[in-house]
């Protein structure tokens, strides 16, 4: 049977992992199953992932750890340093399971992917059934819980995912495309407009002054008026909520969480030098964007892909997250991290079609309060280190102990006091079975 995509109206899926970092930790540490868990950012600064129990305690995303310590003691919150190596590997696993459901996939962030599925849902019966198969398989194969949302547009798929996650009635899978209009409108009327993909808090406040409070309000507002007030992006968002697909896969990246830069090569590339050039170029662009929005990145994700449409070629998709020793918006340190990652994932002999980078763990540069504290502490530590170094050198001779800066790697400086083992990537950190 041949399937002509033009005969099927578009259907998008958005699959994401619940509390991704926390779920990765729990997948390998059964003792974390029912206890409140937070994962802290680089240098153990602030909470970047929270288990549901921690969310229920009112801990907000980005809350500085030093402010949480009392609450943590009181409720037995387990705080873990971020283990990007583990998260990157688990992310790759989820994506490779999803690739079996559709080759049309956009890895939107480390824990969420969009898929085009209109020609493939019939293999499972319908979208809801497909969603449950995805959920079950990812859970079984990787140990990670996911939710799936389906809709006629990316914005609707994202909204469906939100519904699936927040409402137990959906059991983790929500398909807006199979709902009646009144059913769909009922859900849209229940949810605040700020939950819509691409509508930030500030825009939500402005919308509210126009009387647009719910998702349904936005979907039924005259798009021309929105365009005049907010520009073409908001017009597009409203159209998408009405089921008019305006965004293809890979069209929009969320400026708040990640910055993505990727592109297919003009022709197939086999050489690491050429890919390195492309990766550096992507970093240039991404770093520019990063600085223009006044953010700094905490980690860099780099990936390479072969051409999935050339089925006769051997396929390889590699990706790795490289954490930065300190948050940065400096092109040089971002490039160093990306190229280090590239050398790690590059495999000789494949024909590569695409590469890209994603700047992750973005924080606002101007709001680096906790980092300021950290800097003071780091300076103190550095001063102590220098004192120790000087005394050792005095006793054992000059140059016995040198600063690591000459070697280029500053990884030693990164603070991660309670990092879990890199269970899936290091021989000497494997989980133990008795």
């Amino acid at each position, binding site marked *: 049977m041949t399937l002509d995509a033009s005969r099927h109206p578009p259907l998008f899926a958005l699959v994401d992992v619940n509390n991704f970092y926390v779920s990765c930790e729990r997948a390998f540490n059964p003792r974390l199953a029912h206890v409140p868990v937070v994962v802290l950012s680089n240098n153990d600064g602030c909470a970047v992932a929270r288990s549901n129990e921690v969310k229920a305690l009112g801990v907000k995303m980005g809350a500085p750890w030093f402010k949480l310590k009392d609450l943590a003691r009181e409720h037995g919150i387990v705080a873990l340093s971020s283990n990007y190596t583990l998260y990157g590997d688990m992310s790759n696993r989820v994506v490779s399971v999803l690739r079996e459901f559709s080759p049309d996939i956009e890895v939107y962030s480390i824990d969420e992917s969009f898929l085009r599925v209109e020609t493939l849902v019939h293999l499972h019966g319908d979208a809801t059934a497909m969603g449950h198969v995805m959920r079950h398989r990812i859970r079984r194969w990787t140990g990670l819980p996911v939710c799936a949302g389906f809709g006629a547009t990316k914005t609707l798929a994202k909204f469906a995912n939100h519904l699936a996650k927040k409402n137990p009635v959906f059991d983790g899978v929500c398909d807006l495309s199979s709902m009646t209009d009144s059913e769909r409108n009922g859900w849209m009327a229940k949810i605040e407009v700020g939950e819509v993909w691409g509508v930030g808090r500030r825009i939500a406040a402005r919308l509210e002054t126009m009387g647009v409070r719910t998702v349904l309000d936005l979907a039924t507002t005259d798009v021309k008026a929105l365009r005049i007030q907010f520009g073409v992006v908001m017009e597009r968002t409203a159209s998408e909520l009405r089921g008019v697909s305006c965004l293809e896969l890979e069209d929009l990246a969320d400026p708040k969480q990640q910055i993505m830069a990727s592109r297919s090569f003009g022709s197939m590339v086999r050489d690491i030098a050429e890919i390195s050039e492309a990766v550096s170029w992507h970093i240039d662009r991404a770093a520019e964007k990063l600085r223009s929005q006044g953010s700094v990145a905490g980690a860099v994700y780099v990936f390479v892909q072969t051409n999935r449409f050339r089925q006769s070629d051997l396929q390889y998709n590699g990706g790795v997250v490289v954490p930065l020793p300190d948050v940065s918006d400096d092109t040089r340190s971002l490039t160093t991290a990306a190229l280090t990652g590239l050398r790690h994932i590059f495999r000789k002999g494949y024909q590569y079609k695409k590469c890209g980078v994603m700047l992750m763990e973005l924080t606002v540069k101007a709001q680096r309060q906790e980092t300021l504290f950290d800097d003071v502490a780091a300076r103190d530590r550095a001063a102590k280190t220098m004192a120790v170094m000087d005394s050792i050198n005095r006793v054992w001779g000059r140059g016995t102990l040198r600063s690591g800066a000459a070697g280029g790697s500053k990884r030693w400086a990164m603070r991660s006091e309670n990092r879990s083992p890199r269970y899936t990537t290091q021989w000497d950190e494997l989980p133990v079975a*008795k």
Partner: protein
Amino acid sequence: MQPPFPSTPAHATLDQSPLALTPEPLPYTSPLFLCSIPAGFPSPATDYIEDGLDLNEYLVRHKAASFMFKVQGHSMRDAGIVDGDKVVVDRSIEPQHNQIVIAVVDGEYTIKRLYRKNGGVELRSENPAFKPICFKAESQLEIWGVVVGVVRRYVC
């Protein structure tokens, strides 16, 4: 997705040395050549193209679902799994009676043989010094994955 070549790659066993080992599946550059091989009729050319044994391919069938564990202790000694061994665990396999599995017992991982008999479930050691762990119902037992292979290296 399965690669477009037969899943039993070489007609050689591990003891037919010396043969080159490849760290990664070898990419090939003449795909048309491969495609012309009739299905179900192994061609000697297959051996020529895959000129190496790939331990990854031998041990790992579902890469996304495969993990490695380090074994501690002697409870599986008689199954040939000893202290310090690394085992490959495939989570995509539905655990069956008589398979070796990784299970979670009291918040810790344990490697045992799965016994299902007359409605009851047991995790049995392969060492008479260890008693079986019994479960009244399947629901009380959390199996993490099925052990599909063991890896041991003698020379560092």
